[in-house]
């Protein structure tokens, strides 16, 4: 019943697009068909068993209205950014963005632009990152493909020192609804780029984001993703394809969110690749924070390091499902994966699935998971030095989560994010005694 309204809505919107490229059109039609057939999978589906998509299925499906000129809510992130890209309710807003200081080595354009100028190139890029398999959010993104951003570092060996700020804003104040954004990033050989991606929302919205990232040999991409407080339902999917000796560093931070599903799929296609997948999250209220990562070690001599840490209070639920897949030829792979969760209240819940699938024998793979509460002795230690119980808990939570920030060079930014995470711990909900 509910899916019908979704699929009706999607169908109406999808048919409005007048695509130039035949391939793009085919992709759109196939995605529409798949979404109509499957809708949002339920709990019986292994990959979605912990994600309450029923909340979404009943939620707003209409497209978001155009928003005002101002970017509302929460204070800006600190730090010196090279450029700013604003995507408001799914639309690349040149008027709100600031690309004036961009060097020639880097090109940024809206996806709508690419869709009109070279639909076949866009279709082949989409094929590269997203297969035709049924996936509710990717199908929605394909069926309603409209805008987003296309970032290319075209000059080999170009080093871009300061980060580019990408701001996704979903404004559901005027009317609740959904928006779908596709981003593409391509780095030339030896290039280096930093991104700070920020996600803000207000009102009842569903933000559906996906990124396709291609890293040529020896290139380095560092990305920070900050999900700001009070985020609504956000799906955020990233597909990374790494070539020889490239590096990908990703730091996920989230201070709350109604329903956040973070999907990350990294594929090592060339030897000597490395990736760092770091995450810190705090949930309160009825927040649901869901992390699904897959690292495909396809060739030999690649390494990966993954640490996700969460703190849950009130009735929040944290999910971690990590997969390290070592293919038959990926000898000498070194992969580490860990997920640690602290539960602060009676109603909080943590579900974790750190998985290993290994088909090569000369590998080092470890994973670990812990779930527990804060150490009473540590709290006592702080209290005996005059720190209040609430403050003691906050200090311990900060110490616990900020360990994943060590990789972040920008101290100002890392402090800011750590503060936001710390603030989103509910001190009232923490004291269960």
């Amino acid at each position, binding site marked *: 019943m509910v899916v019908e309204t979704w699929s009706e809505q999607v169908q109406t919107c999808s048919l409005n697009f007048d695509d130039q490229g035949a391939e793009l059109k085919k992709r759109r039609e196939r995605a529409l068909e798949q979404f109509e057939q499957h809708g949002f999978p339920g709990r019986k589906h292994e990959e979605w068993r912990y994600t309450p998509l029923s909340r979404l299925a009943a939620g707003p499906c209409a497209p978001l209205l155009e928003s005002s000129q101002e970017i509302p809510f929460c204070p800006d992130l600190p730090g010196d950014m090279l450029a700013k890209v604003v995507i408001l309710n799914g639309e690349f807003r040149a008027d709100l963005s600031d690309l004036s200081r961009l060097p020639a080595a880097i090109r940024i354009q809206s996806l709508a632009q690419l869709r009109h100028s070279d639909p076949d190139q866009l279709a082949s890029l989409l094929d590269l990152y997203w297969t035709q398999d049924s996936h509710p959010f990717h199908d929605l993104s394909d069926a309603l493909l409209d805008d987003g951003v296309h970032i290319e570092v075209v000059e080999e060996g170009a080093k871009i020192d300061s980060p580019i700020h990408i701001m996704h804003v979903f404004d559901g104040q005027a009317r609740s609804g959904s928006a779908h954004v596709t981003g593409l990033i391509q780095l030339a050989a030896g290039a280096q780029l930093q991104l700070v991606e920020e996600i803000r929302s207000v009102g009842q919205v569903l933000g559906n984001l996906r990124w396709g990232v291609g890293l040529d040999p020896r290139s380095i991409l560092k990305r920070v993703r900050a999900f700001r407080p009070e985020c609504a339902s956000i799906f955020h999917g990233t597909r990374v394809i790494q070539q020889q000796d490239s590096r990908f560093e990703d730091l996920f931070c989230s201070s709350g969110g109604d329903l956040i599903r973070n999907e990350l799929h990294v594929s090592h296609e060339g030897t000597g690749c490395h990736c760092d997948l770091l995450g810190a999250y705090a949930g309160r209220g009825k927040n649901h924070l869901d992390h699904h990562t897959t690292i495909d070690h396809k060739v030999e001599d690649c390494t990966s390091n993954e640490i996700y840490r969460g703190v849950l209070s009130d009735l929040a639920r944290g999910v971690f499902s990590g997969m390290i897949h070592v293919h038959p030829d990926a000898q000498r792979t070194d992969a580490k994966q860990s997920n640690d969760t602290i539960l602060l209240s009676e109603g909080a819940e943590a579900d974790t699935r750190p*998985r290993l699938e290994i088909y090569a024998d000369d590998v080092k793979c*470890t994973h670990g*998971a812990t779930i527990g509460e804060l150490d009473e002795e540590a709290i006592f230690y702080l209290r005996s030095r005059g720190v209040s119980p609430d403050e003691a808990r906050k200090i311990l939570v900060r110490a616990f989560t900020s360990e994943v920030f060590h990789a972040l060079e920008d101290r100002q930014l890392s402090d800011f994010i750590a503060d936001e995470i710390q603030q989103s711990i509910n001190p009232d909900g923490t004291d269960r005694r």
Partner: protein
Amino acid sequence: MTEAEELREFADREYEFGFVTDVESDSLPPGLDESTIHQISKRKGEPDWLLEYRLKAFRHWLTMEDPSWPKVERNTIDYQEIIYYSAPKPKKTLDSLDEVDPELLETFEKLGISLDEQKRLSGVAVDAVFDSVSVATTFSDKLAELGIIFGSFSEAVKEHPDLIRKYLGSVVPYTDNFFAALNAAVFSDGSFCYIPAGVRCPMELSTYFRINAAGTGQFERTLIIADDQSTVSYLEGCTAPMRDENQLHAAVVELVALEGATIKYSTVQNWYPGDADGVGGIYNFVTKRGLCKGKRSKISWTQVETGSAVTWKYPSCVLLGDESVGEFYSVALTNNMQQADTGTKMIHIGKSTSSTIISKGISAGRGQNTYRGLVDVKKGATDARNFSQCDSMLLGDRCGAHTFPYIEVRNPTAKVEHEATTSKIGEDQIFYCNQRGISTEDAVSMIVNGFCKEVFSELPMEFAVEAQKLLAVSLEGSVG
């Protein structure tokens, strides 16, 4: 000899226990419908309530689908081709071992488990299940003095219907899963054990299962009840003769531990694994679950899995009583084309419950070994504690080792830890042993036994020896 050659040589080892015993058997024709169930029940002279139970299970089974979620590849099973009842022809009531078919006894001897020997030397009471009917029960009288009931399931149905009625399906209901439903509908025989309050069972109880008559699936049902403050250690071991078609083994094991009771259940499983190309072999789809019903009760599962073409089972503990303890120690070895998807479920419901999981997976040849385990801490399980350790060892570069833990925690006072590692036997370790005059084969066996030590030390002594031998045989030549 190169590493690969050695590997091949080891892998080519034939199954040692492959032989067929020629015993006339009295079987039902293959196929399954309500009349099959009526006939099984009639032949066993069962009361009406049990027939009803079977029929209910069968009707439920018809509504279920053959599950496909485990990480194994297998042929689909035609449930109409299986013979659901096969009993060696009844001769007369057996009072002593001498009356047992000599050919049968010979079979046991080939397996190195001569009942006489066991009886005299090891003090192990053996309830030998030969296909579907229990043919010889030893030590029963001795146990009876203590009030311990130990015998075949069908005898227990006749002699202790109240106990069976009370506990049958109380831990594994027939609605639990596809194979549990099938078992509940057609189970042929099995073991039943009741330890009265305050009794410490003086000997290890043991059952050897063998699948024998061609084309028979075996559906045993084991029920063990340990009353307040009692203790029992139960051993189960299996070897099966060589067969070409796939045989299904869908047993159900239910354990109930009441207040302060301890049940230790050990398994050494060595069903026929199929040949090097993966033809034949047993499908081992067993539902095993223990319920720690009373306070401070304890259930401990230890398993050594070296056989079967496909092993798929999760011996579990439901920790209902406060301060109850669940343990799972496992060694699973897959060689050639063998596949195993095994692990445990620890369900914490009571307060201050604790569980330990130690799983060691060894993959060789083209074997695929999967650990899949659930640690579920429910809301009321204050101060629950779990420690899980899952280690995998890969021997050769064509096998796979997979770890899929599921951890679900709904109580903040819980402390749950999980860790896993994957490794191989280093060339330097082998070299070190070679240098000291230890052959490569012995070195591998030594290292693997060291790897599994934590599990073997949990096995009763006589089983530990057998398990180590089994592992060495199954592994020989798998590594360089």
